């Protein structure tokens, strides 16, 4: 037989508040360190190449996912890509409405088999089409910290600023 006593009144249904308090600190990793430092210092985009599988990984990786080879072939690729897919997000992590909707996209970098997930700006949602050429807009060098947020957003290629 299951429970022999049950709660009959809601004020007997207590709950205990608490959290999982520890915080996270994440190194960028062996491949990540080189990738983000190249953006931070030179505004350059680096990828790694698996010669066996003929895959150019963006973001660069220490290993090939498909054949597990160690990747130490680094190449610089042009800061240019196209929109593979995108969405318009309306709420933040607290489920509150954003001051204004934001566009997030997966941008395939042209000379690679991968790309970057990032914001799109300087464009209206209805102007965006799959395959649209875009380029990254970076923060000023002094503001860059070696993070994905060193890139402010992507915008249509040949944009204004």
């Amino acid at each position, binding site marked *: 037989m299951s429970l022999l006593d049950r709660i009959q009144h809601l004020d007997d249904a207590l709950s205990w508040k*608490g959290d999982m308090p*520890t915080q*996270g600190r*994440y*190194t960028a*990793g*062996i491949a990540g360190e080189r990738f983000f430092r190249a953006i931070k210092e030179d505004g350059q985009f680096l990828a790694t190449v698996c010669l066996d599988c003929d895959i150019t990984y963006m973001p660069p990786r*220490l290993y090939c996912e*498909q*054949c597990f080879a160690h990747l130490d072939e680094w190449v610089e690729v042009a800061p240019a890509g196209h929109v593979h897919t995108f969405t318009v997000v309306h709420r933040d992590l607290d489920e509150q409405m954003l001051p204004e909707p934001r566009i997030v996209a997966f941008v395939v970098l042209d000379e690679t088999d991968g790309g970057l997930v990032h914001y799109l700006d300087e464009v209206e949602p209805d102007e965006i089409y799959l395959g649209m050429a875009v380029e990254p807009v970076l923060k000023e060098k002094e503001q860059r910290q070696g993070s994905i947020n060193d890139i402010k957003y992507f915008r249509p290629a040949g944009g204004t600023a």
Partner: protein
Amino acid sequence: MYVKRMKRSNQRVAVVGAGMTKFVRRAQETSKELSWEAAHLALASCDLTLDDIDAVVIGTAPDAFDGVHMKSEYLSDSCGGWGKPVIRGYVGGGTGVFAAIQGWYHVASGLFDTVLVVCEEKMSSCQPHPQAAFLTIFDHTTERPLKPNLLWIFALEMNAYMHRYGLSKRDIATVSVKNKRNAALHPAALLGDPDITVEDVLDSPVLAWPVQRLDVSPVTDGAVALVISASHVARRVTDKPVWIEGVGWNLDTAYWTNRDLSYPVYVEEAARMAYDMAGITEPRKEIHIAEPYDPFDYKELHHLEGLMLFDKGEAPKAAADGVTQRDGDLPVCPSGGLLGVGNPIAAAGLMKVGEIFWQLRGEAGARQVPGNPRRGLAQAWGDLMQVGTVIVMGV
């Protein structure tokens, strides 16, 4: 005592390869990079490639350490899981040995011929200190508000164990000395120390009496990987397959404050299950090397008794008399254990399975146990002093 009866099942599933990373206090690699480093070495050790792998087992303990929710998804492609079946088992500190047991049932089920087992932990991502993550293993309503430190449960257990059998701290401290000296010969070790003495241990600062600093294994980042195959593959891949002869695991009540902490009943139950499957009736004679879980020095002894390798309360004296030295009657933790090599939780348990693999193949190098050991045992432990996982291997 109810024990799961097992049927004899030898020479069906074998460990054929192993690889690992150095154990370090803080790695620059991401958790994914650490996992790949161990996994690709394990494949290289037996000349296999990812195409030979049918399924992947991932073992990793609290997500709070690496700081990623659903950690096995994040780790999947770095453990070789691209386009393959991936499963993660998670039984706290028992995960390392349990992941090898999962490798066994993947193959013994007949669904897969070769499985890659990868255990990883990157504790250094956890801030302000990895120890802080253990606050959240306690019951959120009846215990966490008291702000417990993980050391509490070890100190409470060690005290109960010492009190019940009138044990001396000096005898217990010899375990820390033995393991840290053994670890000096392990290429991956974090705290190998050939010159440590019992006095050093007894003089180290008290953290939570009777637990002192040198009684405790270090917070560590690291990964270990094994390749486990069905017999027809194992015989093709290596001339020295190490057979998985017995497996056992057991979980006690979460109400740890209602239990007699002086003896790990659940370790005995897990051991009996594994011995039953391996056809072992006299463990002290039939087990030639033991790698019990040693996050604390007293735990090695506590577990040796649970594994029925020593009578209750007798393990400390045997340790002090040198019985468990690498050249003793029953070598215990020739690897250097968690106390010496390091304690990246899940990877620590699999390091012990790796040690038995290398020892039984005579490939442990400077740590090689003399004589011709043919059967070894690795055991892990965890949760609220509550889970025992045991694997018996033989050649």
